[in-house]
């Protein structure tokens, strides 16, 4: 990887400096309450290098990721704007990529998005003109070749650092790394994985990624979600497709007094972070503390990842 910056985001610079990056996540609310969003995001400032802003995650309507990303920029927090291909066709998506770049957003996570049947508008029509792989390719083409999907010239290329997600725990297992490789071939520069609980399977995933040379081409961030309670662990295990929570974690959480469960959950998360950081090819941690943003500073500190590098985006 060259030291030349595709977008010059803080995240890109930290990766390229060889330091481990840390990203967090902050979901916009189901309303126009910007203050609530600012409050949640405030816990993440200076504790992580960039903050993902979800795009109507689980197909539930929330205020849009571009507006939330701009709010983060105004707070001095670097956003990773998530974009799903579920709700917009190539016209809308390209328009938003240009608009995001025009607002100073430099990191984009290209996703297909959860199916609308899981959300609060199951009667909605979905679009899926493109999938996540095509969206990554679109952004790369706009940025590097100055061309839209149609071939139309882009006037003012969007400087975007291109990310995507990968789920090492879905099936077919042996194809998960290959699919991540397709994303990288399409233009993806950094990957954030699905929440990791089954460490054994994640080790296999990373070994294959190393063998295929993918960790040389792309920065892979291990996704960590602290377990807040036994109920949450059980829910993740039973109801979230493609999430594999081993019983050993549930036993550990059950084994401590009720008022110590959260602390045990954090302890598990810190151990997971350290295990992942020790793996070859892991370039950082993506911490998804869902509605637990206020605990992020504690987790990052306990994992030995503070202070964060002082880097300015272009």
């Amino acid at each position, binding site marked *: 990887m060259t030291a030349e910056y595709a977008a010059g985001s803080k995240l890109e610079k930290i990766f390229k400096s060889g330091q481990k990056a840390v990203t967090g996540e902050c979901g916009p609310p189901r309303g126009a309450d910007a203050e609530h969003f600012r409050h949640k995001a405030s816990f993440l400032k200076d504790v992580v290098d960039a903050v993902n802003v979800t795009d109507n995650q689980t197909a539930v309507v929330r205020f849009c990721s571009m507006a939330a990303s701009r709010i983060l920029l105004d707070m001095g927090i670097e956003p990773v704007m998530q974009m799903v291909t579920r709700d917009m066709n*190539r016209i809308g998506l390209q328009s938003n990529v240009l608009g995001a770049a025009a607002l100073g957003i430099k990191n984009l996570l290209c996703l*297909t998005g959860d*199916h609308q049947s*899981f959300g609060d508008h199951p009667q909605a029509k979905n679009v*899926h003109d493109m999938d996540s*792989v095509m969206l990554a390719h679109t952004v790369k083409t706009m940025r590097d070749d100055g061309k839209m999907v149609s071939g139309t010239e882009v006037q003012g290329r969007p400087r975007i650092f291109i990310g995507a997600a990968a789920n090492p725990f*879905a*099936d077919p297992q042996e194809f998960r790394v290959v699919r991540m490789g397709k994303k990288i071939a*399409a233009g993806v520069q950094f990957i954030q994985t699905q929440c990791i609980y089954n460490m054994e399977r994640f080790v296999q995933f990373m070994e294959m990624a190393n063998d295929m040379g993918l960790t040389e081409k792309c920065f892979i961030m291990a996704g960590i979600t602290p377990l807040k309670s036994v109920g949450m662990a059980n829910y993740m295990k039973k109801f979230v497709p*493609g999430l594999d929570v081993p019983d050993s974690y549930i036993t550990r959480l059950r084994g401590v007094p009720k008022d110590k469960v959260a602390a045990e959950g954090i302890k598990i998360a810190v151990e997971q972070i350290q295990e992942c950081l020790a793996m070859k090819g892991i370039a950082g941690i993506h911490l998804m503390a869902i509605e637990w943003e206020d605990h992020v500073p504690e987790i990052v500190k306990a994992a030995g990842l503070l202070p964060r590098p002082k880097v300015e985006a272009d």
Partner: protein
Amino acid sequence: MVIGESKPLAEILDMVKDFKKIVVAGCKGCVTVCCAGGEKEVAILASELRIARKASGRELEVQEYTCERQCDPEYIEPLDDLVAEVDAVVSIACSVGPQYVAARYPYLRVFPGLNTTSIGGATEHGVWKEFCQACGSCIIGDFGALCPITRCAKQLLNGPCGGSSGGLCEVGKGSIPCIWQLIYDRLKNLGELHKLTEVQLYKNWSTSRDGGLRTTIREELKQ
């Protein structure tokens, strides 16, 4: 073939609530094969309507006729005499049928008695599944002759997504196979897994419904 299923009786009764005489028109094409709109189903629906209206104290006269096909003007023609005497037609062909009937009789009320559900086929007795969305530019040759446009809930061309688990799609509460698992298995059998490493780029949807109403013209057959 085109798959359809009967609308609920209450919905059909509501459509014809203001009328005294109707025709229920079936079709001997696809909907006969999928047991939704053939001669037998015409007789059943006609009886149900008569009984329900009789019970409500407002009798309904129902004529029955099953066209050879309802997607061909010449086979609509035999309805001419029947419809002259009635207030409305309930067609239980696929939704092409009622539109052909409407085209022939500009002053006649026409209602659909079926919901047209998909282009597909039977997979077991009493079960029909969707196999095609008529995108107008078939790409299944690249995917082991299986259609990801129709059979993947997200229409992925670079699947499977993270919601594929144990061969099942996360949509449908375990009732839908992940087509990408099936594509993977099949290409593996054929020794063609390398095909799945190629990035699939943008599909041209202009041949699909997105391009506007589609007309298929065969010049050599046109008169």
